[in-house]
C-alpha cells in the first residue's frame, strides 16, 4: 500500500515528461494574449480561472476577431466539454471521496493528467489513496501552466516561432495513445476519431473536439457488440 505522499510524487513523476510540450505551449499562449492586445492581467486571469490550454487561445482569438462574448464563452464550453468524458471515467476511482473533495479535485483535471492517472488507476485499483496520484498530476500541470503562461505574458514570445513548438502538442498526445496501437479495436476507434475531427473541423464553435469523440465512442460500442 503506497502512502499519500508516494502516490502524489508518483503522479508528479508520471506527468512531468509532458512538460516538454506543455511549457513551450504555455509560453506561446501567454505571449499570444498580449500580442493580440489584451491586458496582461486578463491574460493571466484566464490561466487561473479557465485553466485550459487550447481553449484559452481560441477564446482570445475569437474576442480579438470581434466575436461576441457569448460566442467566445460557448466555444470554451464546447472545447472543454471533453472533460465530461474524463470525469465519467475517473468517477469510478473517486467514488469514495467526500463531495467537497470531489469539488476540489475537479479543478485540476486536465488532458495529460487524466491520461496518466487513468493508466495508473487501471493498474493499481486496490490502492486506498489513489486520488493523490490525480492530485499529483493535476497540481504539477497547474503550477507549470501558471509559470509558463506568466513568463509568456511578461517576456513575450521568447520561444522562436520558427521552431514550430505548437507541434509538440500533438506529439505529447501521440506519446499517450501510442501503446494502444497494439490493439486493433483501439486503432479503429482512434482512426474514426481522427478522421472525424478532420471532417468536422469547420463545424461551428470548434465542436469537432466533442463530435468526433462521440462518433468514435459509438463505433467503440459497435465493436464491443461484435466482439461478443
Amino acid at each position: 500500500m503506497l502512502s499519500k505522499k508516494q502516490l502524489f510524487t508518483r503522479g508528479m513523476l508520471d506527468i512531468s515528461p509532458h512538460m516538454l510540450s506543455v511549457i513551450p505551449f504555455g509560453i506561446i499562449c501567454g505571449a499570444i494574449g498580449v500580442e493580440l492586445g489584451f491586458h496582461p492581467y486578463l491574460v493571466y486571469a484566464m490561466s487561473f480561472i479557465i485553466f485550459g490550454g487550447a481553449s484559452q487561445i481560441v477564446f482570445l482569438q475569437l474576442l480579438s476577431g470581434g466575436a461576441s462574448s457569448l460566442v467566445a464563452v460557448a466555444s470554451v464550453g464546447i472545447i472543454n466539454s471533453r472533460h465530461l468524458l474524463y470525469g465519467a471515467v475517473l468517477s469510478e476511482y473517486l467514488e469514495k471521496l467526500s463531495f467537497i473533495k470531489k469539488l476540489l479535485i475537479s479543478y485540476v483535471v486536465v488532458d495529460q493528467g487524466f491520461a496518466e492517472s487513468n493508466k495508473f488507476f487501471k493498474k493499481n485499483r486496490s490502492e486506498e489513496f489513489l486520488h493523490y496520484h490525480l492530485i499529483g498530476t493535476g497540481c504539477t500541470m497547474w503550477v507549470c501552466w501558471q509559470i509558463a503562461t506568466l513568463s509568456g505574458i511578461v517576456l513575450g514570445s521568447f520561444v522562436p516561432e520558427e521552431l514550430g513548438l505548437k507541434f509538440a502538442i500533438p506529439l505529447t498526445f501521440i506519446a499517450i495513445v501510442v501503446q494502444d496501437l497494439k490493439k486493433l479495436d483501439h486503432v479503429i476507434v482512434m482512426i474514426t476519431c481522427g478522421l472525424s475531427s478532420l471532417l468536422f473541423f469547420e463545424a461551428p464553435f470548434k465542436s469537432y473536439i466533442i463530435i468526433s469523440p462521440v462518433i468514435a465512442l459509438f463505433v467503440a460500442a459497435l465493436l464491443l457488440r461484435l466482439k461478443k
Partner: protein
Amino acid sequence: MTLTTIIFAGILTYFTRMTMIALISRDMLGDKIKAVLEYVPSAVFPAIIFPGIFINDFGTFIEMNDPKIFGALVAVIVGYFSKNIIATISAGLVSYWFLIFVVFS
C-alpha cells in the same frame, strides 16, 4: 474582453470538469457504458492529434509532403518501441526540425 466574460468561461469549464465526478454516481452508469468508457483516451486524443498535424495555423489542410507528417510518423515509431514520453516528443520534434532547417532550407 472583461473579467466577467473570463469568469463565465471559467465557471462553464469548471462544470465540465466537476459534473461527472461530483454530481453523477457511478451506479447511474450501466455496465455497457462502463465498457465503452474504456475507450475514452483512444476516442478523444486523436481529435487533438490529427488537426494538430494535418491542419495548419490558417485552418487549411497541409500538403502531403509536409514535415509534420514525417515528424509524427517518427514519433509514433519511437514511442511504440521506446515506451518513453520524452523520447517520443523529442524524436518527433528533432525529425521535424531536421526537415525544415536542413533538408527544406
